[in-house]
């Protein structure tokens, strides 16, 4: 499908949002790099697009790449079977800080569990237009990690805890008959 009409329509309705259009990996799907603060307006424009209504957010994945978070939205249209990929990037200010991104859960309600996952695992906070975060709204208050867990596990600089709730996080290795092989 020719994506250029879609990009030109988006540039008319939401000017300045689309930064760059590339190929996604080696597939024919286009990946559109989006300016972070305009993701909500762009999402609404994509959902109400007359030609291809992107009404299904299939996946939301966060990748950390050398201190920069790349957030990828995989969109799909249940009406016309088009797919497109949106990407945002956000720079991590310091190793322990959080990153704030506008939330899209008002546009695609299925984003709630995925945004909650990303917040717990990476520290990427998704803020709704009223100023509240995804985790504070709706039923997303309940977390995957236990209460009182420190740190964001899927970051590259995460250090495993030594113990949690008085249970040590280690196993004494005794009588190892076979020597441990290290990966070269």
């Amino acid at each position, binding site marked *: 499908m020719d994506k250029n009409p879609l990009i030109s329509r988006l540039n008319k309705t939401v000017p300045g949002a689309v930064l760059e259009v590339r190929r996604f990996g080696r597939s024919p799907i286009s990946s559109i790099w989006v300016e972070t603060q305009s993701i909500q307006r762009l999402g609404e424009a994509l959902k109400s697009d007359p030609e291809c209504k992107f009404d299904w957010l299939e996946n939301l994945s966060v990748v950390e790449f050398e201190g920069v978070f790349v957030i990828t939205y995989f969109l799909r249209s249940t009406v016309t079977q088009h797919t497109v990929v949106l990407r945002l990037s956000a720079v991590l200010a310091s190793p322990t800080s959080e990153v704030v991104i506008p939330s899209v859960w008002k546009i695609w309600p299925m984003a709630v569990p995925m945004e909650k996952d990303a917040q717990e695992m990476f520290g990427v906070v998704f803020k709704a237009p009223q100023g509240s975060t995804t985790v504070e709204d709706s039923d997303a208050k309940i977390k995957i*990690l236990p209460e009182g867990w420190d740190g964001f596990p899927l970051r590259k600089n995460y250090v*495993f805890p030594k113990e949690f*709730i008085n249970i*040590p996080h280690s196993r004494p290795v005794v009588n190892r008959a076979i020597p441990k092989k290290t990966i070269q």
Partner: protein
Amino acid sequence: MAGAFYLSTIGQIMKWARSRSLWYISTGTACCADEVLDTMGCRYDLERFGCLPQVDPRQADLLIVCGMVSYKAAPHLKNLYENMLAPKYVLAVGACANCGGPFSPEFSYSVVAGADQIIPVDVFVPGCPPRPEAIMNGLIALQEKICGQESSHF
């Protein structure tokens, strides 16, 4: 004289009776729960050992920890164990319940390295997941341990 008779013969009979009718609850977590379900099935019948599945911990003697225990679930497992009435036994099935298995402390941040960090375990059954025959082997070893015999099964 009467006391010695009680301790030796009737004690042996009671231990034999306890070991041959272990009613169990199984904490069905991820992978090993399927194998325990198959052990309960009709090909590898677990009920012929006297084991009846229960839901209430107060009515069970045996706790089968099948699968991994996460830090979030650890207090609940301890609560479950403490609600069982003595005499009670624990069978740890699978590599994750033994020592963390593939989710050992150097690779996984949220899995407790073995169920025996939380509750005392009587018999460990290795495997990922262990075959039903291995689970039955572990159960027979537990029965022999309860009777105080030397086991040929481990």
